[in-house]
């Protein structure tokens, strides 16, 4: 989609769709939303829908960052503790490494 050729109202609709879509456990949608519309929302001369677009972009960024932090935290905890959790860890693993505890 070429944002150059879209109306402002359509851009806002798209941004809003991506924002609400991200609530369905889709952090990447939020990340894309943030990156795609950041120039439109903050670095273009003012247009009517910009305020709302800014709101969505900021919230998308925050959401994406929180998710990334959460995923990294879970990954680190799992990698460090998988061996000591015994059966629970084996049940939630998809691939259990061979030959190590």
């Amino acid at each position, binding site marked *: 989609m070429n944002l150059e050729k879209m109306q402002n109202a359509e851009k806002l609709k798209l941004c809003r769709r991506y924002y609400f879509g991200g609530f369905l456990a889709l952090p990447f949608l939020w990340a894309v939303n943030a990156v795609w519309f950041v120039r439109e929302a903050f670095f273009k001369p003012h247009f009517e829908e910009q305020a709302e677009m800014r709101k969505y972009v900021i919230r998308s960024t925050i959401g994406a960052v929180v998710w990334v932090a959460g995923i990294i935290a879970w990954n680190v905890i799992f990698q460090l503790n998988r061996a000591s959790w*015994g*059966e629970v860890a*084996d*049940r939630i693993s998809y*691939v259990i490494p*061979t*030959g190590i505890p």
Partner: protein
Amino acid sequence: MTYCKLMLKHTCNWKVSENVKLYRIVDYTIDYYGYGALPLPFEINCLNSCHCFMHIIMMSDLVLLMVITYLTSLSGMCFSQSSKVYSLVYQDFAEDTYDKCVRLLNGTHEIGCQSSTEGNTGVLVHLNETAVLNKFLESGTRKHYVVLLESSLFERNIMLRLKAKENVQGVIVYEADNFYQRAWSPDLSCTSDRFGLYSNGSYGREYQECNNGAKLWNPLGDGITEESFPFPVFYMRSSSGRDRLINCYKDYNVPEAYPLCSVQMKSHMFGAVDSVTCTRRSNLQNSFTSVGYCDPLGGMNVVTSLQKMTSDVSSEKDSIILVSAALDSRSFMSSFTAPGADMATGFITLLGVANALGQLTKTQKLELSKNIMFILFDGEAFDHMGSTRMMYDMKNGDFPVNRDSEKTQPPPVNLTHVSHIFELGQLGYIRDGVWAHYNPISSKAVLNSVYDAINILQNLSASVPVQNQSTGIGLVPSSLQTILQHRDVPGVVLTDYDDQFTNRQYFSRFDTLKNILSLRYNQNTTDEQIMDLLQPIAQNLSNIATAIAKMLYLIAGGSHTSTSPLDNITVDQNMMNDLLYCFLYNPNCDLFNEHLPLNSKANLSSISYRRYTSVYTGEVSDYAGISMNILASFTGEKLQNFTECLSKSDDQTVRYFNMNGNRSVAEGVCILSSTFATKALAFPLETKKLQENIAMYGVWTESRWTKTTFRLRLFLLQDELSQGMVLLAGLLVMLTSFATVYVLNEKAAILFNTGIV
């Protein structure tokens, strides 16, 4: 716009030409075939055909480069092993030239060795004397080493010191030319004590842990078999392989300068932690490509009844005598060698006893008031799995066959029906006679029965004196210890030792027949020499077997009159000689060939059996199978009518064996015998779910590995500086080529200028 033809139709010329045309490279490949063109995502403007050609070459170079990089990165180190480049870099060792240490797991631990997934690499270092070893332990400072260890230095203390030295990545053990097997055992010094009679609670506390270390059964044992090593350990059997390694070390590593001779060893095992964990992981089917991690160890016990067991008579109290022996053995590298020659003399003597009693006529057998059951246990070397399982089966009424109401079955046997138990242990070193072992803290009544039985045996055995065990020691480690945990039954274990093993290589790879014959392990001897040297041992064993057979006959209620067959009960010494030769030296012998199933395709190898119980398959192992056939043939009934020599599936009281015999008749020999094969598998491992509290039993499993998991190869290692330089040079070439192309492209107008623009 015209297309730039790949076949240079236009000659490349540097002269100024009249027309300046701009060519555009579109899709040159499609154009080559004349199908028309597809626009490429990128468009390159080229000024004339030369310029175009240059672009095409560079593009195809780039594509080729990408393809090559992709392929090599995929295959990594695995450029074809048969290619000349591979053999310039690596020297492989064939897998059958060395034995490998694998990983076994039990309920709480893992033992054995493990390597990383890609293999452990290190600079080779040769340790053949203690002084060299000590120097290495102090001063070896490279990042990784692989130790080439002389086999006289292979023992637990030294291996633990190597394990503690963190940069040892692998050990290869070799035998020097003048090697002589020293007195040493890899097994624990207080062997088989984990689930023994005195190991639990207050019963026999004074005998616990070999009288708390005072009376070790296996004093030469250092326990290396139960250690776990984080690096691979290989045992180089071939002398040419050993020489290659030693020479590589001498040529490259003794002058301590690069290039250095290095070794890579790979033996990656899948199992980890313990049997509970790896079985659980194997059972969790998380994905379609889930691998199994370990398999249970186990085999099948062989049980034969002297009297035919019929389904309509249930067993009476104290009506059965059990005679048992252990079949299997182990060593540090059980998967590759587990000779256990001294252990084998026990079951070979049992076969002799079975032969003598089997020669009684059918009426004589039926006249005996007690039945005699011969039991050959498999899996005893691993915390007595065979006898433990038999106890479990007896408790559930599943001995000798699993209860099934729809079939004709022999009556279930349990310990209340058993009046005596005799076990034959290690009997290879009979010098001054044998010793009778029993549990000294049994009840008074039981001990009286025991003393009576030993008395009878002593009176019958003139040539091989039978002595009582010394006071102050408990029952010897044996299957009897497992059985007595369930009921106090009169039981005697016969061995060639009193309070310590006479075997100086217990459960070692050197516990071979040659060792019993006091020959060197690697000495060359002919078959005839072996047969001659076996005669004294065969004589001892046949004498004691004759005495045991007579004693059994008397205890079972046989008559003592002058017309009784008692005096005719003898064990043939030549047959014992054959049994020893076949089981411990060369299975491809007449005795075994006669007892193979009729026209079986299986060929007997000439290498003596590796009597490791191995992974449970639900069938008798090779050594148990031939023992079963021999036992059935010795004690069973020979049938003349061959049309019915087939076991019926719903009659489990008897089994028909159609064996080769001495080949005088084409249909072979048909034997009818009450023979059963019962599981020798720790019962917690049979269900899919392992309970958590399995500490009561030995649950042994063997880790899985892939077909390509074992690898040993030599290569030369360059110093880090050279390696860095090569990498840097490659990077520079790559960057230079990028720069050149960029420059050429930018200045294309000037370089390929065809005229005034």
